[in-house]
Each structure stands twice: as structure tokens, then as C-alpha cells.
């Protein structure tokens, strides 16, 4: 650990997990140094994340100690355009499978690894599937048919709106009827003018809406 802190800037992420960032050109030197001079001498995973917005892959070599009590994330960024990395197979034989996996899933080359043939996908000529631009849904639509019998699905938002408008119309109709009635009665007794009943319907409606939205929020 001390050796490592002398040469590289180490940040602690959480308890027993450390992070070192290097550049692509320094990588080989760093991994050689760390695996021979520090306690982090075993590789337990090579992780890769595709940051398509920033146009790079973030490769993370997760190294661990002989005592298996700490992990170190050795990070570097790599361009997305099918670039290649030096293979770490000579240092860690277990890297063979991981590099094969990354080669297949992201199209990253590893110089020095002879086994970069098919891993889990057989005769795959499409884009490497874990790159972000590979669209699973489009792939599924292209290659598979969906089961029928589910076309009567309704969009609830549309349905709610439609029903609310229907209800409104209904109400307006009733209100109009009542108005007509009232006007009739008003004609008969013209002494006491009443409030216009449009207000009343408005208030009713807002009251109606409230429980709906409230209940929907409960589930969030």
C-alpha cells in the first residue's frame, strides 16, 4: 500500500476499496509495477463501462491482494473506435477469459491474447452487443415476432382524459338542464336572483380530481 501511494495518487472509495487512474500509455508500466511491487498482485475482474456521451470506454482492472482483503480499481479510458490494449495474460493467466469476453462484447482488441475467438456468441457478425449503440429492442423487433392477443391494451392517460371529458359533457348537459329549470323557476319568482351555477360545477370538478392524484402519489 505504501509503495503504491508513493508512486500513484490513490483515492479511497469505500472501506477496503481503492482507486488509481492512469492513462492508456502509462497502463502497462503501472500494471507491471503494481502487480510486482505492491500487495495487489492478483486480478479478479476486468470491468468495462461504455460512456458513449464522452466517447470512451472506462476499463477497470480490479486487482486484489493475496490475503483477499482489499481491492484496487485500476482505471483507464480507452477510445471507442475499436482500439486495442496490451493483454495482461503474461502477468495474470486468468485474464484470458475476461479479455475474450470484453473482445466479444465491446470489440476491444487485446494484443498478445491468442484466444480471442468466439466466447458465448456464436457466429455473431452484428455490432458487439454491449456497446451502447446496440439497441436490444430494435434487434428483438427485427428477429422475433411478438405474441398476438394483446392489442386491446389501453393507454390509461388517454382513457382518463377521454372519460373526464365525457363526464364533463355529461355534467354540462345536466347543468344546462338545471339552468333551464332554474330559469323557469326564476321567471316565476323574479324577486331573488341566484348565483351563477358555473362556479359550483368548477369547484366540484377540482374536488373530484384531488383524490385521484393523491392516491397515485402514494404509490411512488
Amino acid at each position: 500500500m505504501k509503495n503504491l501511494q508513493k508512486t500513484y495518487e490513490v483515492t479511497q472509495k469505500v472501506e477496503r476499496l481503492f482507486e488509481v487512474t492512469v492513462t492508456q500509455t502509462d497502463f502497462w508500466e503501472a500494471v507491471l509495477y503494481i502487480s510486482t511491487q505492491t500487495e495487489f498482485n492478483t486480478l479478479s475482474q476486468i470491468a468495462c463501462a461504455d460512456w458513449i456521451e464522452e466517447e470512451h470506454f472506462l476499463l477497470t482492472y480490479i486487482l486484489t491482494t493475496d490475503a483477499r482483503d482489499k481491492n484496487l480499481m485500476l482505471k483507464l479510458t480507452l477510445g471507442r473506435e475499436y482500439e486495442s490494449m496490451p493483454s495482461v495474460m503474461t502477468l495474470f493467466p486468468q485474464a484470458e477469459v475476461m479479455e475474450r469476453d470484453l473482445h466479444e462484447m465491446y470489440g476491444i482488441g487485446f494484443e498478445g491474447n491468442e484466444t480471442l475467438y468466439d466466447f458465448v456468441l456464436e457466429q455473431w457478425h452484428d455490432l458487439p452487443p454491449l456497446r451502447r449503440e446496440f439497441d436490444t429492442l430494435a434487434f428483438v423487433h427485427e428477429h422475433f415476432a411478438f405474441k398476438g392477443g394483446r392489442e386491446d391494451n389501453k393507454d390509461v392517460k388517454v382513457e382518463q382524459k377521454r372519460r373526464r371529458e365525457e363526464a364533463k359533457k355529461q355534467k354540462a348537459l345536466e347543468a344546462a338542464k338545471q339552468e333551464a329549470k332554474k330559469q323557469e323557476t326564476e321567471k316565476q319568482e323574479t324577486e331573488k336572483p341566484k348565483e351563477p351555477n358555473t362556479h359550483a360545477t368548477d369547484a366540484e370538478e377540482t374536488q373530484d380530481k384531488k383524490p385521484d392524484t393523491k392516491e397515485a402519489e402514494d404509490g411512488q
Partner: protein
Amino acid sequence: MKFTTIDIKGIISPFSAIGKVLEHPKTVCYPAQTKTVAPGYRGFHTNILTDCIGCANCQDVCMNDAIDMITIQEEKNPKNKSGCIPRIDYGRCCWCNLCVDVCPPNSLALGEVCIQAEMDSNKFLFFPKDSSC
């Protein structure tokens, strides 16, 4: 291990399995005898139609797109604004219980029935059993 000495214990002891003959069998003979499932088992859905408000929260959260919202035949809940209730495609559902977790009036639940056989896979679309009556 080299077999210079004969491993007598290792040869004799496996025969103790014969003692199992005397034990009472624990098999559940299925159609005659059914196993009761534990309370809280995640079987087929049930829905209290008098409570369901048709909010489609369950449809939104279901990551398998297993839920369709279908217009209800006979309205049981005046508060149901959309007039729709969920229908579940058991070809896709994984009984994860998320739709139950997000249901605002707690009307949707997973019941104890879990056996269904059909010849036609398109028949696996179910309205949850109405548990209000």
C-alpha cells in the same frame, strides 16, 4: 489414498442407508393430496375490483411488459377514473411482486393458486381473480 489396508468402515457404513426403509415416506401424492402453500406465497394475481382505481402504476413498473390495461365490463369502483383494470400475461410475468408493491390502494395481490395448464400459449392472458366478493 492407497488401498494397502482395506477401508472396512467405508465399505460397511454406506449400508446404513437401508435403515431408511423403515421411515415413513414423505412424498405428497399429488392429485389426491395437495400441498398447502405458505401464506404470502407468490402465486397468481388477485385484484380487489372495488378498490382498483385504474391508475396503471402496476403497468408502469412491470419491467416485463406483462400488464395490459383493459376496459372494464362492469364498473365496480366509481373512483376508477380510466375505467381500466390490469390484465396479466403469464407468459411474461416473473412473479416479482413489484406491481403489488406500487399499487396505491393495495388492491392487487399475489394469491395462492399457482397451477394452470393450457394447450394454447395465447390463453395465458388472465384477469386477476376478483377477491372483493
